């Protein structure tokens, strides 16, 4: 498998504090990597360097072999889906307009946008005829995040970046969305980096799990082996999640 996303010794400093302190990470095409860590560990920053929202002080970020520093960030970002906890739907746009935004920026013809929007809304379980013309504020939290996922997937991105997308949802809705999400991603084979502080969610959505602590990669392993790692920080995470008992 070729390497699609590559972070090499990335260092990010804010207010004289190292948020990322030499992080290296390689994500193969089609792979799903879950990044876990405590609050403030640097996991969100780790995905924000991938779409250039955060520029690293040192190190290299490559997408598909090309360095971000030498890329047209605007064009590059249109190939990267972005799903965040706050969803960030445009409140003045309808559901269909939100979902069709990137295809429109990409200059797709109207008909292609319309059919893409319709099919992706259908895939995330929102009846296009019913939801397409509605505005975000009239939707429930779960429905809003479904739209968020649809919006990220509509332009058929190479990479999907997710930052705690289900963090604010109740457990039942969250479970439904996790299942939907994993299914959609597998069907499409989209490469993904998924940030969460919930180990169970990480194990569920990720093929691989990376633990970041204090700006450094502490563990990086296959999801099936993660809970049996001996690293003390991993152990603490596993014990706190109540998942250690299965061993």
């Amino acid at each position, binding site marked *: 498998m070729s390497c699609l996303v590559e972070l090499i010794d990335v260092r990010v400093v804010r207010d004289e504090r190292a948020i990322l302190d030499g992080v290296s990470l390689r994500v193969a095409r089609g792979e799903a990597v879950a990044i876990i860590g405590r609050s403030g560990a640097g996991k969100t920053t780790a995905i924000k360097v991938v779409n250039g*929202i955060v520029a690293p002080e040192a190190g290299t970020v490559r997408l598909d072999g090309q360095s971000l520093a030498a890329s047209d960030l*605007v064009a590059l*970002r249109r190939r990267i889906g*972005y799903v965040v906890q706050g969803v*960030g739907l*445009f409140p003045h746009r309808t559901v269909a307009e939100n979902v069709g935004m*990137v295809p429109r*920026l990409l200059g797709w013809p109207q008909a292609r946008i319309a059919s893409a929007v319709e099919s992706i809304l259908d895939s995330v379980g929102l009846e296009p005829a019913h939801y397409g*013309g509605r*505005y975000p504020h009239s939707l429930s939290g779960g429905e809003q995040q479904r739209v968020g996922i649809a919006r990220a997937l509509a332009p058929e991105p190479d990479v999907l970046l997710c930052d705690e997308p289900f963090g604010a949802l109740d457990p039942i809705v969250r479970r439904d969305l996790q299942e939907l999400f994993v299914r959609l991603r597998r069907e499409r084979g989209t490469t993904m980096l998924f940030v969460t502080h919930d180990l169970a969610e990480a194990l569920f959505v990720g093929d691989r799990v990376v633990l970041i602590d204090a700006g450094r990669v502490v563990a990086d392993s296959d999801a099936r082996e993660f809970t049996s790692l001996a690293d003390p920080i991993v152990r603490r995470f596993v014990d706190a999640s109540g998942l250690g008992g299965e061993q």
Partner: protein
Amino acid sequence: MNRAFALEIARLSGEHVVLVAVSVALAALIAIPLGIACTRREAIGRPALRIVDAIQTIPSLALFGFLIPLPFVGGIGAKTAIVALVLYALLPILRTTVTGIRGVDSVVREVGVAMGMTPRQLLVEVELPLAAPSILVGIRIATVTGIGLATIAALIGGGGLGTLIFRGVAMVDARLLLAGSLPAALLALIADFGISRVERRLSAPPSRDTRV
């Protein structure tokens, strides 16, 4: 009230509306781009806001005193009055533009950037539409206060309802004072009501959203 007097009130009300409409429109053309620039660069924002604040404190008579000898923008008549009214209308529009743009949800803005919007697209597609209700508040304040303020046009022969008011003051004639102030108050109410409606349409749930 005789017919000639009614016609004169109507004519002066018309002049008044033109004074306010032209000056608020010009002020918006200056203040909205300036407000956008203020949110982009602090080096523009701070001095610009300070200068516009300072303009607000200049009494209209003093301002006209400065303007009369100036070429192009100065002299006497409606043109100079409009220049003064534009200067006074800058503050509310500039302030609300800055507040409106700064008030855009940071998550929404970040998602816009992350999906590959250029700064210009972000501005046109996201920031301005979301700041529009706030900017309209500024335009409404500028318009309503402008209708009161536009009476100063009569200080330099610029016409408008102030003509009746100053004539009434000079002649100690309450009838003239009322003939000038009542239409002005009425215009202010109409403007307030009209622009409020547009504001509500922009900020409230659009009616389309219940359509299935």
